[in-house]
Each structure stands twice: as structure tokens, then as C-alpha cells.
């Protein structure tokens, strides 16, 4: 029972880490970044490179954030900026960029599966069960990301400008806020977060050039359900991630793997505006 609860908490945390960047981009720009999956992959490879260079493992997410952030800013300024008025084309173009990134990774690193060591290994005894320490660490990471971004958004001038752009772009421009720059920065940060997520989850699994795609789908569905608030994203991750764990444990892992996508699609049909204004 405790293991199940821990599984749910850690799964939700992982989902939150993976989706947060996508949500931030969607919230500010109303654009879905389908390159998010490839950015997750890029972050994982950044962690791999960091390990080969002998950097300490705790630096991997930060290195990945930098790599993803730079990639994101490049993507925004070259491609996404031209597609604000064509949101469906923005999905396609970012998906295309995802293909490009994925193939570039293959050219650079080959197709084979590789492994990255976790910064902390082993398990911790909790109420009679042993549980992976690293998975628990990811809960802390998710909390840090959630709290950090809530603080930036609500406690800083940049956050205020960003909220102003989200709420009313024309008015914000009239007050001297450079909405183009806010979006550029947002896309960079969202992409950086995606890559950092890739670095954070690799020690749990492995690194391969297509690892980002399944995560992209789940993250996308979670963001659709959440609207644009980090708090509702957290709830969505807990509820849908929880369903995934329960179904995987008691019914079948295959159905569990589909739980988020299918349940989110049904939830959106029943409540089209998402759960942000529940």
C-alpha cells in the first residue's frame, strides 16, 4: 500500500517535471511545442555528455537546462515567431524540428541505447519497504520547479510582465512591455525545462534517440487538461498519473500506459475548457 502511494507520488512528480516546460510555453504563447519530446531527448544526451566529461552527476540537469534553453531560443527566433497566427502550423513546424533534433542526435550519438548513472543510488527504508532514493529525490525536484516558477511568476517584475502578456497582450505592449521578448524568453525557459526533465529522468531508464516521444504525448495531454496553471497541472499529474499507476499495477501495464492519453481525451470531451476553471 505504501509502495503504491509512493509510486503514485513519484510518477506524478516525474510527469510534472516533464510537462511543466510545455505548460509554460502553452500558457504564455498559446502554442504547443511539439519539439518538447526532442528537447527531453536532447537533455538526456546532455546528461550523457556531462557524465563522459566527468562532470558531477548533480550538474547534469543544469547543463541540460542550458542546452535546451539555447535550442529553444534558437527555435523561437527562427521558426515559432513566424507562426503565432497559425497555431496548427506551429504544431507541425515544431514537430518537424523535433524530427530534425532527433536525427541530429542519431547522427551525433548513434542509435544504441545508453545509460547515465543517477547522482544518488540505492534505496531508503520507509515504513518497512525499501524505495528508490532517486525517485524520491524527483518529488523534491518537482516541488522545487513548481514553487520556483510560482515565485518567479508572482513575485518578480519579469513574472508580472509575463502575466500581463498572458492576460492582455495589446494592453501590455501599450504599457511598454516587449511581448516578443517575453515570448522568446518563455520559450527558452520552457525548452530548458524540457531538457532538464530529460536529464532528470534518464537515470531511471536509458537514453535513446526516440525516448522523448512517449513523454511528449503524455505531457501534451496533461497540459491540455490543465489549461495553463501550474497548480492544475500538479492536480492533473496526481490524478491521471495515479490512475496510470493503479491500472498498471492491478490491470495491465499496457492499459496503464494508455491511461493518461485516453482519460485525458475523455475528460476534455466532457469538460472542454479543461480543469483550470473547475
Amino acid at each position, binding site marked *: 500500500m505504501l509502495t503504491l502511494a509512493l509510486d503514485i507520488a513519484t510518477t506524478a512528480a516525474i510527469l510534472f517535471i516533464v510537462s511543466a516546460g510545455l505548460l509554460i510555453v502553452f500558457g504564455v504563447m498559446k502554442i504547443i511545442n511539439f519539439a518538447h519530446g526532442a528537447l527531453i531527448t536532447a537533455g538526456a544526451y546532455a546528461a550523457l555528455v556531462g557524465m563522459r566529461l566527468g562532470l558531477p552527476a548533480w550538474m547534469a540537469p543544469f547543463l541540460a537546462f542550458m542546452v535546451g534553453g539555447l535550442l529553444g531560443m534558437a527555435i523561437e527566433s527562427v521558426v515559432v515567431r513566424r507562426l503565432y497566427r497559425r497555431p496548427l502550423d506551429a504544431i507541425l513546424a515544431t514537430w518537424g524540428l523535433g524530427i530534425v533534433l532527433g536525427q541530429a542526435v542519431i547522427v551525433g550519438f548513434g542509435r544504441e541505447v545508453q545509460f547515465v548513472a543517477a547522482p544518488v543510488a540505492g534505496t531508503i527504508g520507509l515504513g518497512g519497504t525499501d524505495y528508490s532514493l532517486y525517485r524520491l529525490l524527483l518529488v523534491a525536484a518537482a516541488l522545487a520547479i513548481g514553487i520556483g516558477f510560482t515565485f518567479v511568476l508572482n513575485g518578480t517584475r519579469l513574472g508580472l510582465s509575463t502575466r500581463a502578456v498572458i492576460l492582455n497582450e495589446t494592453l501590455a505592449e501599450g504599457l511598454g512591455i516587449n511581448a516578443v521578448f517575453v515570448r522568446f524568453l518563455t520559450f527558452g525557459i520552457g525548452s530548458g525545462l524540457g531538457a532538464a526533465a530529460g536529464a532528470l529522468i534518464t537515470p531511471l531508464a536509458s537514453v535513446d534517440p526516440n525516448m522523448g516521444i512517449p513523454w511528449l504525448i503524455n505531457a501534451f495531454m496533461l497540459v491540455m487538461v490543465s489549461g495553463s496553471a501550474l497548480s492544475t497541472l500538479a492536480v492533473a499529474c496526481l490524478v491521471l498519473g495515479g490512475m496510470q499507476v493503479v491500472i498498471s499495477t492491478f490491470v495491465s501495464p499496457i492499459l496503464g500506459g494508455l491511461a493518461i492519453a485516453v482519460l485525458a481525451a475523455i475528460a476534455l470531451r466532457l469538460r*472542454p475548457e479543461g480543469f483550470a476553471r473547475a
Partner: protein
Amino acid sequence: MPDLLTPRRRIALAALAAGLLVVVAPWIVDTYTASILARAFFVAIAALTVDVLWGYSGVLTFGQSAFFGIGAYALAMTFTHVGFDAGGIALAFGLAVIVAGLVAALVGWLSFYHGSTPLYASVVSLVLPIVLVQLIYAGGETTGSSSGLVGFQTFDLDLETWFRLAGLATVAVAAAGYLLLHSDAGRILAALRDNEARCSYIGINVERLRLGILVVCAIVAALAGLGHAALGGVAAPENASFVFGTQLVIMVALGGRGTLLGAVLGALGIELASAYLSGSLPFIWELIVGIAFVAVIVLFPAGLIGALRRLIPGDRADAAPRLQTAAPLPRADRDMMVEARGVTRQFGSLAVLNGVSFSARRGELVSLVGPNGAGKTTLIRCLADGLERTGGEISIVGRPIGRLPPHRLVAFGLGRKFQAASVFNTLTVADCLRIARSRRDPMSWFDRSPVLSLPQAARQVIEGGGLGDRLGDVAGDLSHGLKQALELAMVLALEPDVVLLDEPTAGLTRAERSAFGAILTDLVRREGLCVLLVEHDLDFVREISSRIIVLHQGQIALDGTVEQVVNAPLVHEIYTGGHVPTAETAS
């Protein structure tokens, strides 16, 4: 010359030429190329369905691969587990059609509902192949799991025959698609893509139509998948995968969306090039495709065909139809046209409308005025869409509207003109009007009619408004004033009893404005329409109204004749903050 080469003859000639090419090609190209192309033809048919859904009707779909996969597995599973005989063949075809149709109906029900967004439909289309592939993985021996089904007995045809079969099927699907989509009725798909709201307010059941299109496209894609599996003797999870679904979109985008030919060229080109290049340039090739795809989306959204069209500007305009006056419909024998009782609209805790009651009769032109935020546009919305209001009752021509969606209210005799001119931007003026008439004059799915029947009033607006000789022009290219006139004519083409107009004169010149006023008063007097008008320009309101309703803070502040309202101190207070020095000097 134009008479000899009508669009239908042109497409027949093109199809004939393409068919000939397909028949001759196996004698020219080498076996390897022929085998690649034979398979590619089936992919091209699936790409054609993506083009119909995305390029023509505006729903970006990643899920056509799922239907392709359903067809492939229908054949592979039947031939593997039931056997390859006449019964098995019939069963395979039957299963492909029925399962694809049912799944499409389910997906369509999920994707299209009143108020659904194009993004949501894309979301569902993305989930479908993912679910299907997982089911295939979980299917064990039945589906062959991750390795798919191979080694079943299938049609024993030589490559040349397969090539011609597949090629001719592609030509047939493309030609039939072209005829359907460019028929009078087929333009509705483009209308859906351009402006779904306008379609609803013309009386088209948008959701049911979209569902129907999806079911047809799904069945065609399933049959393509069935052919693909029969030719290759294999059905693999990749055939149904989300990645293949996106590849289909890439093919259509590169070839040119909304052209059909672009989908075929894109599919054949990419399949051929990847067969040749993925060997010599293993990963670089996909990198190139990815870069090309991004570049095309950003720089040439119309794709290869679109770029070619820009280089070779041909006269693509259809001959404009001849106008005809439709026989007038008998008018409802009833005087009371609009009755609203206690209409309320809340947004959260904010009541934009708070207990609005009024009525309007035949032959009245009632203007709704009031400051911004008074609730005028909200009231119009509540009258035109039964789902909008949060309280109160509304009857149109004596029938309570309940919670009915807009397309049902059109049948009650309601026409609504939006504030910003709402027409079909990529269609011609004639097509816009014809679609507006679709409830009265059923349209052909195979042909273009040389005549266009319009009721007298709509014809007056078209001819009097300067659109008479521009029927063949694309609506999006019209000036603002002409677009407004076109939308009014589209509304009048419905032969409504009640017309709702939301700021129809915004952005019009003074001359256009007075011409518009004359048309309205004439309609009310001669046709006995009941017109409800939201308007800011009080001069205009005073000239044309038979009654004025003043809305203020979500309630009716005043309801009376022009003189009563114009002279009411309350109106001065609302509009100018009171104490205006009254001066009777003539201007």
C-alpha cells in the same frame, strides 16, 4: 475555348493521362522502382484522405495511419486466422470497412461537438494510433504483437499488375475526390475550414458533416491499408503508428495541402526518395526531410503545388453562375416574431444580462443601443444560440428556442449577421451565396450549377451593392464594405423572418452607410422582416428605426419610439453624462 475545357473535362483529361501513364510505366521503370511505387500508391491514397481532412476541411489529423492499420490488419488477421478464400476475402473487406467506419464514428463523436476546437480534434487523432498500436502489441498471436503478421497467403499477382492496380486506384480516388470537392456541395468542406460559425448560422449541422467526412476518409484509408498489406504480405504495427500518421501529414504539407495532387506527389516523392536515399544517406536523409518540412511550413505553407502555382499564374477562376430569382416562400402567418422573457446571461458572478424582456413584431426595425458593455452583443448571441443564456425564455416566430444550437434556429426563421463580416474567405462570392442557399436548394455532389437562385431581397443586395459582376471573385479579396454586403445577402438568402444585425455599419463610409440603411428599411417595409440591430451610430439609428431599445448595465433602460428615446433625458445621461447644453442651431 473555356467552354470546351470545363473544369470537369479538364479533370477527366488529366485522369485519363495519369491512368495511361500508370499503365505504361511498368514497361519503363525498373523492377525495384516499380515495387517501391506500387506500395507508395497505397500510401498516397491515405495521404489523399489526410488532405481532404486537413487541407480541405481544416482538421489537422495525425490519426489516418490508424485507419490504414485497421485495413492492413483486417486483411492480415483474416487471411492468417480464417484463411484465404472467397469468404475470407469478403470478410477482410467487410471488416476493414465496418471497423474503420465504426472507429471513425466514435472518434468523430469524441472530436466534434458544439464548441469543440480544431486543436482538440488533433489531440484525439493523435491518441487513436497510440491506442491502436498498444492494442496490437498486446494482441499476442492474434495480431503478431511487435513483429506484426507475415507469411499469410495472399493474392498471387505479379508486380506489374499490382503496380497498375494500385496506380489506377490512386488516380481514381484522386479524380473522384477532385470532382466531389469541387462540386457545389463539396465547397461546403472549404466553408467549414474557413468559417465554422458562419456554417452553423447558415443552418448546417457542422458536427454531423465533419463526422460524415471522417467516416468516409477512414474507410478509404482502411482500404488503402488493406491493399498495402495484400501487396506486401505483411501488416506491421508501424503501419498504424502515430509516426506514420505524421509522415502522411508531412507528405501532404510538402506536396501542397488542399490540392489532392500535392498529396499524391508528396507521398510518391517521399517514398521513392527515402527508398533510394535512406540506404546511401541513412540518417541524413530524414534530417533533410525534417528541415524541408519545417521550411515549407514556415515559408511556403501552400507546398510544392502552391509554389508552382505562384510561378505559373493561370486563370483558375470558374465561370460565374447566372443569377436567378427564387420563388418566394410563403411567409409564416404570424405577427409576433421575437419574444424574450427575463433573459439572463451570467459569466461567473458577473451578470451581463439581467432579466431582459421585450418583443418585436413583423415589419419592425428595432435598434438596440447603449454604451459599451451594456450587453447588446450578448443579447444578440442569446437570441441566436439556445445554449448561450443562463436564464429566461426566448421564442422565435412563436417557437421556444429551448437549448437548441444555432443551426436548428435557422429553421425557425432566424438569420444572424456578425459584427465583423463573416463570409467564407477562400470561396467565391457565388459559392458563399450558394452555400447559404443550401437549406433551400440542395446542392449537387458531382457538378457545378450554371445558375444561382436567390430570393429577391438577397439579389437586390448583391446587385445594388455592387457585387453583381463580382460573383466569380474570391470573397476574401473584397473590400470591407462589399464583404458586409455579401454577408447580409447570405443571411437574406436564408429567407429569414427575423434578422439579427450586430453593428453592420462599423467601418463603412458614409455613402455605404446610407445605402445600407436604405436597403434595411426597404426590406422591413416590403418583405415584412423583423430586424433587430445593434448599432453605435445614433444618427443612423434615428434615421432607420421604427423602435429603439436602450440597454444599460444588462437591463432595458428604455423601450420606445424614436422620438420618445431621442428626447428622453435618461439617454442623454447615459451617453453624455447629463446636462448637455441644448442648442437648436441647424448644422
